[in-house]
């Protein structure tokens, strides 16, 4: 859409008294390669192309998502809801600022197919108990343009690539699964990673899990491995620090800025600027630059993740955290790359300090109710710790806790910071996020399991 047409549309959107107007235009191309049962089963192509119109009056938001209509017509459906004094007219947009992505094109299809063929072959040779290998590769080119009533006029060309490996193991009636994935906000470098050690771990964990028994279900100390172990922070406090919850007093962390909410070992940062990480963008989905934001420093809550509309209630500095899956969704504050700052504790000291507990090596996702702080996350691979030694593998289980309780039970933090890629679902859809942490020890959390040891 031409600049003058955008200006006409914004003026129309403000014509009945809106105090905020924004146009979000998206053009996304996605390719998904599915490799299963020794074959490249399919390549799915997808094109998303549409527009989101948002107006606001105070904290009331009116939003339209459209891909098949004249945007002026749908804007009229929105502005019919307002009838007050015109605040903005003769809106003129700045010159467009373009933020280039690292890649403008997809990888060569043949290269991807060859990589998948070779990887499938390599994995299947690693153990005869491997029953199935499933590989999935997604590459995305996403152009977004944002214009608003202040004259902001920005465009970002984003790109993403993610590879997912899932392996099923079988020994007579025993079955287990193990997986590994990595994702980046670049495409061309996705296959440069050496994953040999990750594959060895994947196979070891899969075989160990074949013969794993249930864990005992009770509260116990837990060591969470680096990288995706940070799901505990993503769920326990990340969502509760989003302005969508905090501004409306719908978070267990509302009105807690400046208060001690976690142990001294906890410093949490959300940084949307780290090059090539899966959750990185140059601007957020309202067009403002992403930033490095300290959220918890030495256990004290110092900031929330903000977006423009919710910040009308909070009156804090914008953090560049407004995100949405696509033009279907109005944006809200979300995490980008959230991690726990490394500490100095050694992993061997952590293990030695536990008489009876759990060493969680691989984690699944989780969920939280930000208002009560009750959260859960899944452990995919875990080993018992007895008398300071790592022992047998036990079946995966859910771990559950409450934000204000668990954050104070982060007892030890090591220095081996790693990152993991995931998809986070919330009010504005699914967005790519990175979570990161070094290995940590939680002094006590409820672990799902059976009655007897």
């Amino acid at each position, binding site marked *: 859409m031409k600049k003058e047409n955008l200006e006409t549309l914004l003026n129309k959107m403000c014509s009945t008294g809106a105090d905020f107007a924004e146009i979000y235009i998206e053009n996304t191309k996605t390719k998904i390669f599915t490799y299963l049962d020794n074959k490249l*089963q399919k390549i*799915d192509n997808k094109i998303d*192309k549409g527009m989101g119109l948002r107006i606001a009056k105070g904290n009331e938001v009116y939003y339209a998502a459209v891909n098949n209509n004249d945007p002026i017509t749908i804007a009229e459906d929105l502005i019919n809801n307002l009838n007050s004094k015109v605040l903005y007219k003769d809106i003129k947009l700045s010159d467009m600022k373009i933020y280039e992505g690292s890649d403008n094109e997809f990888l060569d299809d043949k290269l991807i197919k060859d990589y998948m063929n070779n990887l499938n072959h390599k994995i299947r040779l690693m153990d005869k108990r491997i029953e*199935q290998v499933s590989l999935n590769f997604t590459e995305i080119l996403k152009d977004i343009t944002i214009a608003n009533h202040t004259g902001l006029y920005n465009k970002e060309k984003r790109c993403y690539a993610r590879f997912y490996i899932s392996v099923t193991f079988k020994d007579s009636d025993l079955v287990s699964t193990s997986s590994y994935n990595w994702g980046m906000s670049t495409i061309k470098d996705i296959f440069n990673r050496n994953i040999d050690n990750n594959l060895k771990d994947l196979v070891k964990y899969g075989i160990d899990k074949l013969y794993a028994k249930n864990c005992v279900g*009770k509260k116990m100390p837990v060591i969470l491995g680096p990288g995706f172990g940070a799901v505990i922070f993503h769920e326990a406090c990340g969502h509760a620090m989003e302005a969508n919850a905090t501004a409306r007093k719908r978070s267990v962390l509302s009105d807690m800025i400046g208060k001690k909410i976690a142990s001294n070992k906890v410093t949490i940062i959300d940084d949307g600027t780290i090059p090539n990480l899966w959750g990185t963008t140059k601007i957020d989905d309202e067009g403002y630059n992403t930033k490095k934001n300290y959220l918890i420093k030495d256990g004290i809550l110092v900031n929330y993740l903000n977006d423009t509309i919710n910040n009308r209630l909070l009156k804090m500095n914008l953090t560049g955290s407004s995100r949405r899956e696509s033009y279907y969704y109005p944006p809200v504050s979300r995490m980008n790359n959230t991690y726990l700052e490394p500490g100095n504790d050694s992993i061997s000291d952590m293990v030695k300090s536990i008489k009876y507990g759990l060493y969680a090596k691989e984690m699944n*996702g989780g*969920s939280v109710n930000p208002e009560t702080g009750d959260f859960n996350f899944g452990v995919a691979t875990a080993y018992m710790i007895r008398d300071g030694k790592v022992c047998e593998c036990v079946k995966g289980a859910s771990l559950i806790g409450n934000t204000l309780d668990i954050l104070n039970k982060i007892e030890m933090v090591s220095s081996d910071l790693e990152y993991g890629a995931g998809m986070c679902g919330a009010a504005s859809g699914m967005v790519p996020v990175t979570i990161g942490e070094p290995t940590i020890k939680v002094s006590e959390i409820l672990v*799902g399991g059976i009655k007897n040891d």
Partner: protein
Amino acid sequence: MIDKLIDLAKENNIDLEVCSKKEYSAQIAVLNSNLENFYISNTTRHNIKAIKDSKCIFFVTEDLSDPDYIINELNKTFLLSDNDNLNRLSNNSYENRNKVFNKPDFKKVKEDLLSLYALKKDYSFIKNIEASYSYNSMNIDIKNKNNYMTDNTYSNYIYVSISGEKNNIVKSDYISIYTNNYDFNIVKEKVIKLLKYLESKFTETSISTNKYNVLLNNNVVKDILNTFISSFSTRNIDMKLSFLTGKLNQKVFSDKISIIEEPVNTKFVTTRYFDDEGTLTYNKEYVSKGVFVKTYNNLEYALKNKEELTGNSYGVRNFHIKEGNKTYDELIKTMQNGIIINRIEGMHSGINTRSGDISLQATGLLVENGVVTKPLNMIILQSNIIEILNNVIEVGNDLEEFNSIIASPSLLLHDITICGSL
């Protein structure tokens, strides 16, 4: 535009079919006494199925303005595809344009939702009431060179989440209703029931880990079934991705469990008369008295395995466990001592669909001598789908039509592990 694309494909020796879904939705959300947002969407998405030289590929797009680009991408993909796919285009025709839907008056709905906050007068512990209503309609058109099919669906969805606060302790829960008929009296009735339950949650406690008699309420069973739904597909069974792989025609569950799908039963919200490949749908049984008797398929897997077409390219519609005879209250009396699980969380991370293992955060109620005595929180349902559908004492008669795709009656079970912190 679709005809032009089909013609251009033909020139490239590609047989092409387009399934277009035109959706209109509108949503109002309120928080306490304020309007939070009003949302409308008007979008069309085209699912393109292309067949050439015994290969079949798919392309999903919201933009048909550049047919040359689409054909070019299809040709590139055909060159690379390994998978010989015996697929074909739809050879059915179907037109159903007779459904008449009455959109509710949005102003009235808004006032209805805002009126819920007045309940704070009677329930002073209320902290926040978030309520939303959404209307969704979809037209589905399938077109290829020879055939045309069209149908439409319509639904209302109401969601109310309430939090309460006493002595700095916050508790919350929600209701959700899918229906063809917006009726605020039903919403309000359910909200008041929810408030009564919420008030009791302030005394929540945990329990000790043990095996208990357990009553899973209808929503909990629905959520579990929903996570395992692809395990019933021919694809996932063939590809060894399902806990049901290798179990067809075997007794897998209790005699009391029969599982059926009723896509054309108008009692439910989302009837579909054909799937996204134009295969006509019909009612069918997947599990008969505990025996796993049928898988669901799309055209590719039906033709590959020479199975009867089931019309499930989109998944399932109105899939549920068959009702038993006892009411929910009778199930509680029958249980005498045990635990009701009424909410589970974390299905995407606490369920393994290959092994069937389940480990989920839960809330519930303790039942002693046939009476509910305590609310429970910070507990974990630790089981396996086969154990759950085998350890059945009774199946309830409380299947609700207020559900979208999957539904279930409540299940009374024996010897299920519930893990707690005491």
